[in-house]
Each structure stands twice: as C-alpha cells, then as structure tokens.
C-alpha cells in the first residue's frame, strides 16, 4: 500500500461544512448585533403597546374618581338647566338598569346556551356542525346589528323603546358566547366519566345533570361571567332600543337607563358637568365589568384547584 493511495480526493461535503463554519464565525458578530437590535425593537413595541392602555386606565381613575361620590351612586339624575348647571344628580337608576337588563338577558340566555352547548358537545350531525359554524360567526357579529333586530321585532310592534328590547338584543348576543364556552367545557370532561354514568344505568339526561354539568362547572361559570361582562359594556344595541329614563324603572316594558348608554349620552352633553360625570359613569361600569372578569378567573381557578 503506497502513500498515494491513502490521499483521498477532497470531500465536497467537508469542504462545504468548513465554508459554512468559516462564514458563520465571520458573521457572528454582525448577526448577534442585528439580533440584539431586533430584540430591543420587540421590547420597545411592548412598551409602546402598554402606553395607550395605561393611559386609558389612568384617565378612568383620575377623572372618574373625581366625580364619584356615594350620593352619585344611589340617587336619581336631575336635568341641569342654564341656571343650575351642576345639578346633575346621580346614576342610581342607570346602575339598576344595567343590572336588570343584563341580568334578565342572562336569565334567558344561560339555560338556552347550556342546552345548546350540551347538544353541540354530544352531536356530530350535519345540523350540529352547521349550528356550530353559525355560532362561531355570531360571536363576531357587530352588536349594533342585534340592535337593528331588536328594534324591528320589539320596538316596532310595541310602538316604543323598552328595556325588553335591550334584553332581547343582549340575550341573543350572549347565547353564542356562552354556548361556545359550554361546549368547550363539556368536551373537556373525560368521556370515561360519562360512560361510567351510562354503564350504571343512568339516563343521558341524568348523566348530564349529575356528572357532566358539575364536572364542567368552572368552564361554564367563566363563560357566563365573561359574557355578562361583555353584555354590560355594550352600548350600540341599547342606543337603538332602550330609550331613556330618569326615574327608577323596574318594568322592562318601559324605557330604561343603562351605564354604557349614559356614558355615551353624557360625553356629548352641552353641560360641562355632565361631560365630566361621563367619566364617573364609565368608571362605575368598568368596575362592575372588572369585578365580573376578575371574579370569573378567581372562581374557576379555585374550583380547579379544589378538584385536584
């Protein structure tokens, strides 16, 4: 065996690897620099995103707290006049209106959404898939369109704006959101639980009531509270259908007041006192919405922990 035979021809793959390694080490300084600059840009974008959001919270607290007082929260509004421009009274009936309208809407929407969620979780038929698609699309439907619907179906036949029309609009708005959350929660229940119930001879209605719904409860509660929070903040559909009221209105067949709508109306008022009070109304609304949002997280987190 001669030495000449041991000298292998140059391997193209090894040469290529050496070339890549050479270029990688040549460019590593520049590439690290570019990478660091890019990561810095990402961080700056994150801070930039927080600025307007922080500004919204700051504005709410600063201007809202200034106009909120205990009488403001539980008395009725009064109409300011040119002589008594600061006599705007309170927002008690708007708080009441918001709670009544969204509460009654939830009362109708929750059982319906629960049953639809059960149906969607148990069925794979063509009708179920179609309904699922419709519900997906309805969750993104602009709420003003449901205002138009409630106007045509409640306000026109009743010949007048009413809290009931608002309940219809918000109810139809809530059902898809809750139904979707329920379906997800039901699908998360292990099928072994369900089969165990059926194997013990329980009817499927009994299994749903005794096994599936209790097991899915954290998800259901989260869905309901989030939908309720969203419905309370809705302004556009209420603007078209609930009219106004400056007194306590427990009868949903008449016009009602609501926090979201009052915020909008006050913001365009000719009286500076009402424009300033718009922030107080908004802060009250946001406080209720945040209690529901944060509450839903806490409740579902606690229930999940207890089950473990």
């Amino acid at each position, binding site marked *: 065996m001669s030495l000449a035979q041991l000298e292998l021809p140059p391997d193209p793959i090894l040469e290529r690897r050496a070339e890549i390694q050479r270029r*990688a080490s040549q460019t*590593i300084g520049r*590439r690290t620099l*570019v*990478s660091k*600059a*890019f*990561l810095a840009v*990402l961080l700056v*974008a*994150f801070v930039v*995103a927080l600025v*307007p*959001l922080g*500004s*919204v919270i700051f*504005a*709410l607290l600063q201007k809202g707290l200034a106009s909120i007082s205990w009488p403001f929260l539980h008395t009725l509004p009064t109409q300011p006049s040119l002589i008594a421009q600061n006599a705007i009274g309170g927002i008690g009936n708007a708080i009441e209106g918001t709670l009544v309208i969204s509460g009654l809407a939830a009362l109708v929407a929750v059982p*319906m959404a629960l*049953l*639809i969620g059960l*149906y*969607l979780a148990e069925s794979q038929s063509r009708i179920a898939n179609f*309904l699922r*698609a*419709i519900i*997906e*699309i309805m969750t*993104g*439907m*602009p*709420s*003003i*369109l449901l*205002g*138009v*619907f409630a*106007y*045509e179906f409640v306000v026109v036949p009743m010949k007048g704006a009413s809290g009931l029309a608002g309940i219809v609009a918000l109810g*139809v708005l809530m059902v898809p959101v809750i*139904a979707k959350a329920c379906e997800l929660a039901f699908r998360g229940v292990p099928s072994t639980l369900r089969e165990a119930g*059926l194997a013990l*001879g329980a009817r*499927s*209605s009994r299994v749903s009531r005794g096994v599936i719904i209790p097991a899915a409860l954290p998800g259901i509660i989260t869905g309901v509270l989030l939908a309720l*929070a969203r419905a309370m903040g809705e*302004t*556009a559909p209420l*603007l*078209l259908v609930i009219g106004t009221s400056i007194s306590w209105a427990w009868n949903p067949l008449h016009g009602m007041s609501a926090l979201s709508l009052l*915020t*909008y109306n006050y*913001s*365009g008022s000719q009286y500076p006192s009402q424009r300033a009070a*718009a*922030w107080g109304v*908004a802060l009250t*609304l*946001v406080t209720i*919405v945040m209690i529901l949002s944060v509450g839903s997280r806490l409740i579902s987190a606690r229930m999940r922990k207890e089950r473990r």
Partner: protein
Amino acid sequence: MSTPETDTDVSRTDVAERIRLSATSDRPYQWLLRGTALFFGAVIVLFVWSVLHTAWPAIRAFGFHLITGKTWAAGAGPYGALPLITDTLLTTLIALIIAVPIGISSALALLFLIPQKVRAAASSLIELLAAVPSVVYGLWGLFYLIPWFTKTLQPFLARITGGSWPFSGAQVGFSVLLAGVVLAVMILPTIVAISRDVIAVVPRELIEGGLSLGATRGQVLTRVVLPSARTGILGAIALGAGRALGETIAVAMVIGSNPQIPHSLFSSGATLASTIATQFGEATGSTTNALAALALMLMIITASVNAGARVLTKRAVSGAL
C-alpha cells in the same frame, strides 16, 4: 339458598329494564336539546330576515346605487354608501397598520423576552383590557386624544410633510385618523392575546433546532417562529379586523359623523356602523330602510372576515398539535 338467586334475577331484570328505559324514554331530553338548538337557529334566521326585510324596499328602489352612490344624506336621500364603505375600510386599515406590528412584536416579547413573573401579570392585564367596554375607549379618544391630536400630533405631521397629502386639511381632531388610532388601541389586546396563543404552540424542537444550528435568537424568531405560526397570526389579524370593521360606539364618538369620501387622513368621516348608530334613532321611512341596507352590508363584510379568521386560527392550532 334460593333467595340470593331470586335477588340476582330481580336486579338483573331491573338493570335490563333500566337500560331499555335509558335507550327509549330519554327521548324528551334529546328533543329538548335538539329543540333548543333549532329554536336558536330560528332566532338567527329571524335576525337575518328582519334586517333583509327592512332593507328590501331600499334595495328595490336604489339597487346598486346603495353601494356605489357617493352621497349619503339622511332624511331625503340620496342614499349612497360609498363614503361609508370607504371610511369603514380606511379606519380598519389604519388600525391594522398600527396594531399588527406592535401587537405581534408584543406577543413575541411577552413569550420570549419578558421574565416569567412579569409575563403572567402582563398577560392577564392584556386580557382584562380586552374586556373594557368600547364606550370607554371612545370617551378616552374624545377627551384625551383629541386635545393631543389638535395640539401635538396633527401640527407635527403637517410640519414634517409640509402639509401635503395625506396630512392636509383642517386640524380639528375628529378624523378618520383618530378613529383608526382608537380602533388600533381597542384591537391591540385581541391581536396580542391570540398571536401569543398561536406562537406558544410552535414546537420547542423547531426553536432548539434553529439555535443549535447557530442561528441567533433574532434569526430564530423571524425565520423559524413567525413562519411556523403564520396561519394563526393571519387569523389573529383577521379577528382584529372583524372587530374594527364592526366597532360602533367608539368610532361614532371620534370620527365626526360626516359621511364623505375622505380627502386626507385629517378628514372627518362616518363608517357603516357609526352611521347606523347615530341616525337610526331619528330615522323614518326610506331612511330606516337604507340604514338597514347598511346593516346588511356590515353583516356580510364582518361575517366573511370572521369566517375566514376562524378557519385560519383553527387550522393553525390543530396543525401545530
């Protein structure tokens, strides 16, 4: 000795009976579920029909002029929605141009750069901000952004561009630009939250593979993470767009409610949704019908954008699992 046998027999027939019952007599329950589902389906059909029915006289009377007409005048007409459609698309476009780069960058920063402890807090803050009612963002735009626009931003933009298009015209605050900025702030939490979710399911092996081959962190993010989360991010953008297109009250508060085709970004305007909100209350007769036609256009636009978004996000999540 015979009693236990009888007992077993009894319980056996009992179980058999129960099984038979559970198969047959649970029909009421099945019908309840099916009936509720069908009832809600009927409500949705009624919803679409009511809008279509109210819009029909306007569609018959004005036909395609409803979409192509350049003048919108409530009361006597003409009812041309071209300015409204233009403003709807323009404000959404402005919102996306601002919110998409910032939103995706924030999602990347949130997942890969922010310390673990801050991440949870920042994540829940963003989700809570998505729950803030839109009227509050409108209020903020009206009382905080308008002064800033008229005193600072608009003069600045006009100065650096020499007052030329698209930053020309009166600097009154109320404008399509302001509406776009408010929308951007509103859809930012949505875009951050959903892109964070779809980026989080990018397989770890891909990221580690990229790093082990000597790519820098920035290169991994731009050439590995973003491409593999592409579909889901598109879905997040489409969902944000759907929200911006249909947003009503915040836009109505800051756009100036002036149905015209904008000649610059400083022009006031009116979108499909904001026009329905501001004019429906006082509308009668043909104006109501024309407003319902706007509602129909809005329904078709948002339904298609949202359907597209759902397909994209669903494909992204199931494709990654």
